């Protein structure tokens, strides 16, 4: 008998089916009673998606996670992106010398570079030196080493949940491959206010339209509490997260 059949038979025996042998310990279990799942929990927040209240809550959570938050309009966004990238050349994010040992972006000379996914709004790159932009796509991916040598990554997002301060990327064209938001040290992430929902169920139900897409849920920069439960931000993922909260002009529907 194959392992598959054997394991499935054991499961059936454990659940009380007779004539399929026993579990390894020689047991046949009792069939469990049917279950109805009570769903009395909140499936939506008190505040509407995109409302001032949920945006304020999201910002509060992001700041709590030590992310940097910038409120921008469509018109301001390109300049803010350019300024944040400029700041990277003049300042080493990590003052303790570890960055040098990594041979990563901090050791790179000259201007900072930014990797962008294929479907990003070109207007966002308007104020950047084209030579500083690295294009990545599933058809023409950058190597991990190339990504490691890039200073930052700029993406959009799919949805954000304010109660938990979570931003979700689902590898859409304006978010790109998972690797680009992982290997680079600084992530600039643009979240439109109309993409912000209050509760986890609202976020999940929106994502359920495409469960097959690879998803990355981001709640602040990477962190560890492994040493005396003392939280340290910035371990293997990007050590710096800039969230550009973009005031939505049109009442776009998230996930449309």
């Amino acid at each position, binding site marked *: 008998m194959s392992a598959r059949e054997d394991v499935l038979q054991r499961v059936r025996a454990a659940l009380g089916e007779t004539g399929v042998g026993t579990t*390894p310990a020689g047991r046949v279990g009792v069939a469990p009673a049917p279950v109805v799942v009570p769903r009395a929990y909140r499936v939506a927040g008190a505040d509407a998606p995109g409302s001032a209240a949920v945006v304020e809550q999201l910002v509060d959570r992001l700041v709590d996670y030590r992310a940097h938050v910038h409120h921008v309009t469509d018109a301001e966004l390109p300049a803010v992106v350019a300024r944040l990238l400029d700041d990277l050349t003049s300042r080493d994010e990590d003052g303790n010398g570890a960055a040098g040992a*990594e041979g990563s972006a901090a050791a790179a000379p000259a201007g900072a570079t930014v990797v962008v996914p294929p479907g990003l709004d070109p207007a966002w790159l308007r104020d950047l030196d084209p030579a500083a932009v690295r294009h990545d796509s599933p058809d023409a991916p950058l190597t991990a080493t190339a990504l*490691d040598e890039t200073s930052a990554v700029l993406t959009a997002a799919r949805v954000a949940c304010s109660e938990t301060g979570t931003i979700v990327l689902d590898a859409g064209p304006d978010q790109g491959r*998972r690797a680009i938001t992982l290997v680079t040290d600084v992530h600039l992430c643009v979240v439109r206010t109309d993409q912000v929902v209050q509760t986890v169920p609202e976020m999940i139900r929106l994502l359920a339209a495409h469960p097959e897409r690879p998803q990355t849920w981001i709640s602040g920069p990477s962190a*560890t509490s*492994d040493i005396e439960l003392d939280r340290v931000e910035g*371990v293997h993922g990007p050590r710096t997260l800039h969230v550009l909260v973009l005031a939505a002009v049109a009442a776009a529907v998230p996930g449309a």
Partner: protein
Amino acid sequence: MSTFLGLPGLRRRDDDHARDDAAAPFGPVPHPDEPLRWGPAFPAAARRTLRDEQLRRNLGHATRTIRAKRAAVVDEVPDWEALRDAGSAVKEQVMANLPALLARLEENVAARGGTVHWARDAAEANAIVTEIARAKGADEVVKVKSMATQEIGLNEHLADHGIAAIETDLAELIVQLADDMPSHILVPAIHRNRTEIRDIFRQRMADAPADLSDVPRELAMAARAHLRRKFLTAKVAVSGANFGVADTGTLAVVESEGNGRMCLTLPETLVTVMGIEKLIPTYTDLEVFAQLLPRSSTGERMNPYTSLWTGVTPGDGPQEFHLILLDNGRTDVLADEVGRSALHCIRCSACLNVCPVYERVGGHAYGSVYPGPIGAILTPQLTASTGGLSGADDVNASLPYASTLCGACYDVCPVKIDIPSILVDLRAREVDADRGRAVDPWRAAMKAASWVMSDGDRFGLAGRAATLGHVLGGRDGVIAKAPPPASAWTRDRDLPAPPRQTFRQWMAEHESSAGTTGTDTHETDGGGR
């Protein structure tokens, strides 16, 4: 061994699991042949770890910190109890429909380009992973923190076959470098403090800066630098899974550091080992568990990173994906009508952090990769087919007694596993397994007590006889030294001498002086009071 030689986790066969205080402040703790059964029985193992003052301080500090964080983030969720009810019921539903759900998961993973394997036990699962790594020509694999792979001893098995398994979670790395065993489900190096960790890095991490301090941030950055190259060059990654969605074939890994994302994204090949109980029926069910798990586990509103993937995504992430569905004793647990709810566990570790026993003895006393309250009910059940609860013959039979039944674990469990009731039920199983034993002082005492305590007259007589012991208390009214088995009590505690008069004797007098309030002399009841 003074530096990390790249072949972690080679087993040492040695029965002494004590930390050698004379040497460095760390390992080696031998890597057991059976990750679910090592060291002496719980009482003896606990006696040993209790002597470690540093361990007690480390654990006390860490558990107090995390308890407070959990309490704060749980208190702010208005529908927490409703979420627990839903989470508990969903897991119950999963167990009831497990055959169909497993088949559905398999079908969906395969439809999206993944390969599904089944493993009856640890040996089969280890062989599958080894074969995949060999086929890829990998002499090194990077690992996401995973309880399932701890449980099957995967690292040691790979090492035996010349493949280095690199733990990339900071705490797992600390444990691995120290040649130690994990002592906690979530924070496996919880028994170490910052100074010990600094010493471990300095002595055993080849590229650690010589002037490394014990500031947590600096230690974390040293680990980042150490692992960065591994991530960028690894061909094969191995992970566990927090959830597997039957309806969609989606798998989820919940983490904090980004090492999980690195392993799940950069290598060409990904192998995931998942216990068959980790299923949830639908993608939407994540709305329950994505709230329960992070708050219960790390005391955060949401953990920094959660990764979800379904089979293979062309042009993004690993282009070869293997899922190994693991039994390894789970079907034995499932067959137990009471104990099966231990399979609902989502490995949050909240029960460890509130457990007054765990807090004092630490994880190693449990002699299993699953310590604490959940370990006390899961370990003996997972090892049922090899002893587990077979009375005095098996060290794991001591685990269900490693609890005062204080109930703190049940209160915090996000999926409402009634751990105290299961502990009591497992004790009954253990006692029954032992009934054939010729001499058992406990059984003799319990039988005698049962006879006395099932009849008011007999009990009254026994109580009256006990009052004769009143004189034993002497001037202080206490007994400070008693013969066995009460000697276990009087080593650290006084025992009150019996009173001059039992309550029922007093009550008889009180009733006969009918209508009056009795003639209470307010005598004190003897010692220890």
